[in-house]
């Protein structure tokens, strides 16, 4: 198990966002995390990533307790992440967006630049390396988020809604890229997504959250036919 | 230290603190709604002070009457400043928002200096020297009046925010701008209003202040700093926080003056500021407006 969450609970004010959540992620798998809006998926990411500290429970990464550590420390330990609401460094070029991330593992500017260019080749942004981040299309911004996370050479990658707002062709490209990242780079992936087709087709396993609790877990086919899951989505009048 | 001296300091501190609360509420309101710090806040007060002074100078009207002039004028001035300047940088980058009002502050201070010279001015009335006594504690009447009126205005603005439709809209914008927009509230109108109201409040504070203190062109700097400390102690964006923090700062200032001398008052206040940041950065009442 590369990552384990044990009994994690987090509340904001009176609202419980995540309740007694326990899950495990196997090294090298693509784990899909789905659930209706407000299920606590992004909160879970924020807890793993270090932006929130859980009220109760522990997060263990590669055998090490990372509960309560700062995001920068957690990134250093090998967890990378993209944001649902994207955070490009707007006034910098695409390349300059990725270079700071590369500096984490690189020695000096030249190596950081080299690594950044490699990552940009992988994600297909190499042609836009000198464009300003503020000029990118939606799909390219997603690639940029991904590039930044990849440049930190993570062992575990948290992807937050990478397919949102993409057209079908772009979604297919995104799925291919995600598979490639796992297959070629050996990076474990936890993926939050609303675009069901994408996540169901590419994930090895799925975990379903609802009101901050895990209601189902298993391979995609199992989860798709799980009555609890269907009710949760229908109940919220929302099917992806 | 004699008990009487300390008791006197505490009472005086409370009295002036009530005034600091009013002075700071405008700043907190503006920040709460627009998320911008108005670095020219003290200068708006300075303008209120000078307006009151000059009208008094020619008409000898009672300064508290002049509240009816200073507050609306400063309301309009705040609205004008928003429309002409702030609106252009709202939603822009940090440096724009900070340095716009910093530039405005510098501009207004020196405009005042050029127009009215650095001579200290104050308003004197029949009751300027009057005092009230309660046992061994004395209170200056103008300060006491200022205190009472500050409390009245503070309560008024709180009621406005709590019960009126516009007030609620402002609070909604402060708490969650996107949700407010979904409810049909226009954020920029709220920003404009908060600037106008904030300016009116601090302009009114200026009217009170000039009745028991001097005004000069650069007085804004000192009081802006006091406002910052009060607002941060109370909680950036919290009105109730301001009302609690004001008297605390007033008392701390007084005790600091006793301990280290009057010239070091601000240093003690600043130390409180740093302590707040270290131990309770969200302030006493956190971020909620009410």
């Amino acid at each position: 198990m590369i990552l384990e969450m044990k009994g994690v609970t987090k509340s904001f004010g009176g609202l419980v966002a995540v309740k007694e959540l326990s899950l495990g992620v196997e090294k090298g798998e693509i784990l899909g995390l789905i659930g209706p809006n407000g299920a606590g998926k992004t909160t879970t990411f924020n807890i793993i990533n270090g932006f929130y500290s859980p009220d109760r429970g522990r997060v263990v990464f590669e055998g090490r307790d990372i509960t309560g550590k700062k995001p920068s420390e957690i990134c250093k330990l090998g967890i990378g992440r993209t944001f649902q609401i994207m955070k490009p460094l707007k006034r910098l070029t695409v390349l300059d967006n990725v270079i700071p991330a590369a500096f984490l593992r690189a020695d000096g500017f030249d190596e950081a630049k080299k690594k950044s260019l490699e990552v940009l080749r992988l994600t297909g942004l190499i042609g836009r390396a000198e464009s300003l981040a503020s000029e990118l299309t939606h799909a390219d911004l997603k690639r940029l988020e991904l590039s930044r996370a990849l440049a930190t050479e993570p062992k575990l990658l948290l992807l937050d809604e990478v397919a949102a707002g993409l057209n079908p062709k772009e979604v297919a490209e995104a799925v291919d890229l995600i598979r490639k990242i796992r297959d070629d780079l050996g990076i474990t992936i936890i993926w939050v997504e609303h675009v069901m087709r994408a996540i169901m087709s590419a994930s090895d396993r799925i975990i379903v959250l609802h009101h901050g609790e895990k209601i189902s877990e298993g391979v995609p086919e199992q989860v798709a036919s799980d009555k609890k899951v269907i009710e949760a989505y229908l109940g919220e009048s929302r099917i992806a | 230290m004699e008990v009487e001296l300390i008791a006197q300091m505490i009472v005086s501190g409370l009295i002036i603190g009530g005034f600091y609360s009013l002075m700071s509420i405008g700043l907190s309101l503006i920040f709460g709604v627009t998320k911008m710090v108005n670095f020219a806040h003290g200068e708006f007060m300075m303008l209120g002070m000078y307006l009151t002074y000059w009208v008094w100078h020619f008409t000898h009207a009672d300064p508290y009457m002049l509240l009816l002039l200073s507050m609306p004028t400063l309301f309009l001035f705040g609205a004008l400043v928003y429309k002409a300047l702030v609106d252009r940088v709202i939603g822009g980058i940090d440096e724009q928002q900070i340095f716009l009002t910093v530039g405005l502050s510098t501009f207004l201070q020196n405009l005042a200096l050029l127009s009215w010279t650095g001579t200290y001015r104050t308003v004197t009335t029949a009751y300027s020297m009057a005092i009230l006594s309660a046992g061994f504690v004395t209170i200056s009447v103008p300060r006491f009046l200022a205190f009472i009126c500050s409390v009245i205005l503070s309560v008024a603005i709180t009621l406005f925010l709590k019960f009126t439709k516009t007030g609620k809209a402002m609070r909604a914008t402060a708490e969650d701008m996107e949700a407010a927009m979904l409810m049909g509230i226009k954020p920029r109108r709220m920003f404009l209003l908060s600037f106008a109201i904030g300016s009116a409040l601090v302009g009114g504070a200026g009217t009170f202040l000039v009745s028991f203190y001097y005004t000069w062109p650069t007085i804004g700097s000192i009081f802006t700093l006091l406002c910052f400390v009060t607002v941060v102690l109370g909680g950036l964006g919290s009105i109730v926080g301001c009302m609690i923090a004001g008297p605390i700062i007033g008392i701390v200032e007084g005790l600091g003056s006793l301990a280290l001398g009057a010239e070091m008052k601000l240093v003690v206040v600043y130390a409180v500021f740093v302590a707040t940041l270290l131990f309770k950065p969200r302030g006493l009442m956190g971020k909620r407006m009410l």
Partner: protein
Amino acid sequence: MGSKFKIRKNYLYIAILTALLAFPIVIQDAFLVHIATMIFFYALLASAWNIIGGYCGQFSLGHAAFFGLGAYTSMLLLLYNSVPLWAGMFAGGLVAAACAIMIGLPCFRLRGPYFTLSSIGIAESLRLIFLKYRDFTGGAVGLEIPRFGSNPMIGPYPLPHKFLGDPILYFQFDSKIPYYYFALGMMFIMILITSRIARSKLGYYFLSIKEDQDAAESMGIPTTRYKLISLLISAFFTACGGTYYAMYFRYIDPDFVFALSLSVEIALVAIIGGLGTIFGPVLGAALLVPASEEMRAWLGGTYAGAHLMIYGLILMIAVIIVPEGLWPRLRRLIRAKGWWE
């Protein structure tokens, strides 16, 4: 038109450097040498401010705190211990760095305007402290570089020992020319440091923090630590500028060296020139220093108020119309016209 004027970057740098070095010898006008020296001086201060403000995005309105600490540390070391100012400069930098840690630590853990507000408070507090404890600091009367053979004065009171030594060792010259070169050298060093930072991990980390702190943290950047590093560098060199001021003007007092208006001026130079760029502060100084001297000549007696009022106006206009500063615009223009190679 463009291709005929392709200038080779290196030749341009050498030409400019040579011109700067030859300037005071060729131009025998003491006033112009003074203006040039002041340009270098403000360029130095604005460049130092730029490290924390322009690159790291943490805006200080109290850099006078560091400036004044630099000036006073070196001046007091000179008066009490006969330490030459250029040596005391380093001590001044260290004191300022300590101050930077003191305000940085509580503020940089937080997000929001706290650092900016704190910076105003610290400069003001230092001004009041240095005014009050006048038996040590000279208070409002200020401190002056003593004449050789006389007693150093702390405010109105003389110290028991005499100030002795060689004028050259103490960098005391009658002519302004040595001061010109010293300021040029300091500005040059600052530019060099800025350019090294800009291309390094530090620079990229600072810019990331400025653009988006959450993103920066997620990329493995310990944001609090790097904000502190940025402030330390900035404070150190601002303090060096303070010592230079003491050297050049030979007199300091709390009301000038800790003044809010000085802090605002420094920020203004950086903003007009261009935040987060290497040459922005230099351009800003090159524009504002001569302009303010012009204003001084023009406005005569009312100068103090009018000059600052216009600065306020310029700041407001600049921030609305050219928030990124003039140097980036100039650079784009030069590139567009193909003059640069």
